[in-house]
């Protein structure tokens, strides 16, 4: 892979978006928090790193990630308390509020000169680790791979733990979960904070590996795209959305060149068809086919 920086960079970007997808999947797929705001937290992490690295000499990736995670978690906590601490609110309400947050962040990034306005923050230097610069596409790939792997393992552990079952209980029926004595709001806030930290760390990685941050990385388009990955891949599975992301990004790159104006429409159609015929996502298709075969065989 070292031979082709372009391919390495694409895979690195997919790994980074993978962290973002995990954060959406934990919220929506596992806990029923229908979030359209993960890109805002992704952008937050990116801008924090962008500001620090361009205004100071700090480039150590460990410290940068830590700062991004803390900022992301605190922001997640504030939003989480606001959304979930009181009475139960509907899925749609959460979606609208997080959507609005994403919109506000994009507008803010677009117009605030401290954040570079529409131009974003360019010229973010390569990160360092123990004083050594990670200055190659391969180095950045390994960095993204390590962080992604940690995020994935943590997510698997959480989802398969007792707490994970509680998350699913809250997703499936908030009211019943409360009746059983679970602290619904605590579960939701905890998941939201963890997911926010994940998203912010992804944003931090995006900033150092791309060398720039721009308003669009905190915006509506990316927020919706991540939800699209989860829908296509199958809500409630950790790997489905990751596969959908890899697939769509790979196809995307080819199709943007081949059919630039038709491609977005095709993606929209794919989404519609999936939601109607395969509500559990594309990864449920083989199971569905087997099931229908079994039915024809037994009849």
């Amino acid at each position: 892979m070292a031979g082709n920086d372009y391919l390495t960079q694409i895979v690195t970007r997919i790994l980074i978006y993978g962290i973002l997808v995990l954060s959406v999947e934990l919220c929506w797929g596992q806990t029923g928090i229908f979030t359209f705001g993960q890109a805002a937290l992704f952008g937050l992490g990116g801008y924090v790193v962008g500001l620090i690295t361009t205004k100071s000499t700090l480039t150590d990736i460990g410290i940068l990630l830590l700062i991004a995670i803390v900022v992301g978690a605190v922001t997640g906590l504030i939003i989480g308390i606001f959304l979930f601490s009181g009475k139960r609110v509907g899925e749609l309400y959460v979606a609208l509020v997080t959507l609005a947050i994403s919109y506000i962040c994009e507008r803010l990034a677009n117009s605030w000169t401290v954040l570079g306005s529409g131009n974003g923050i360019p010229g973010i230097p390569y990160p360092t680790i123990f004083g050594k610069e990670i200055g190659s596409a391969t180095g950045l790939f390994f960095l993204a791979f390590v962080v992604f792997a940690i995020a994935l393992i943590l997510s698997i552990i959480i989802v398969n733990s007792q707490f994970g079952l509680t998350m699913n209980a809250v997703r499936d029926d908030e009211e019943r979960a409360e009746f059983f004595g679970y602290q619904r709001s605590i579960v939701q806030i905890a998941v939201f904070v963890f997911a926010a930290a994940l998203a912010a760390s992804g944003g931090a990685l995006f900033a150092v590996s791309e060398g720039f941050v721009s308003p669009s990385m905190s915006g509506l388009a990316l927020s919706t795209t991540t939800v699209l990955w989860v829908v296509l891949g199958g809500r409630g599975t950790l790997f489905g959305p990751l596969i959908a992301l890899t697939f769509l990004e790979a196809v995307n790159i080819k199709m943007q060149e081949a059919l630039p104006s038709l491609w977005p429409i095709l993606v929209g159609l794919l989404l519609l068809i999936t939601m109607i015929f395969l509500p559990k996502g594309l990864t449920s298709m083989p199971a569905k086919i087997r099931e229908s075969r079994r039915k024809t065989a037994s009849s």
Partner: protein
Amino acid sequence: MNKNLFKKGSTRRITAIVASAVALLSGLTFAPAQAAPTVKVGVLTDMTGAFGIVGKSNKAVAEFTINEINKSGGVLGRKLEMVLVDSATDAAVATRVASRLVNQDKVAVVVGGVASFTRVAIRDVIAKRGKTIYIWPASYEGNECSNNVWNTGSAPNQQVDPTVKYLLSQGKKTFYLAGSDYLYPRNILSRVRQVVLAGGGSIVGEEYVPLDMTDPSNLVSKVLASKADALFEVVVLPGTGPFIKGVVDGGFKGTIAGTLFDEGINPIIGKQAEGLIGVQDFYLPVTDPFTKATVARFNKQHPEAAGLFSATFNAPAWYRSIYLWKAAVEKAKSFDTAKVNKAMDSVSLKNSIGGPVSFAPGTKHLNLPMYLGKSNADGSNTIIKSLGKIAPYECAKKQ
């Protein structure tokens, strides 16, 4: 659900899907190798998205210029090959395709970008991390002085100074400044302010509106109430048309000037474009024989982009960008980035759209022939005065 994840069947399934995704990805890179000794020229522009119309013009001009160079023998005996990528009016897409040009296609030079946010996003990918020459062919807000980056559009002082000086000479004393709220209008208008104050005029109002503003009534009434002698406006699309229509139809008595009026934009404004003042590096009525013949040839060869050869679509800048790079390569006798970069600093073109151009050494910008123009009701322009070559105040020569 995740009990499912570890079942045998689903693992197989996942492996299969991951494997096919990897196959798809690697398919991206194993394109057949080119044996011919062509030199690749990266052309990066917004073929889709908000600036798609500009991209259409840029692509046609790049194609036209590269064909012309190839017909006359190429560069150092090698033919040029255009590699076109679509930056889709999106900074994240732009960095990806810029990386493709530099790391996969191994282009010798990248020309491109429409908006400044694209320039700052791809600049490091191409010039710093990619160590490749990057030419930015657009009139813009200034201050681009990065290594390996060369600016072939006009700098703020080249457009603003003569416009404001003309207005002052016409007895305009009070100025209202209006722009969209981002870097380009803010930098342009800060230059306007500087020149107005230095020339003894005064600023009676300054207002910025959101980038996507389409209802300008609030701004229009402020401008009308100011009773300014002149309005300098940098409200960009989609707000330009409604804003100018509002001001003109509202009975504004002063003169309206800006940096974005020419044959490309005026039709969008409509008949209210009559009387708009501006300075560009090119207007269609520029009459030197070389410009006339070249534009005529372009329109003949590229009917799909007819009417899109205009200064605000950066057409003249794209044309000279590729020729300036050619001149630098020939001077350096090499395609090597460091050598070409060194040669660039002082190359010039005797023949170019609008007149001869030359890099002003140390500034990374061009000495450009500029024209003071006035728009007509039908969208065409009349040249009030040919201003001759104007030096850029940029980088080492900032003032």
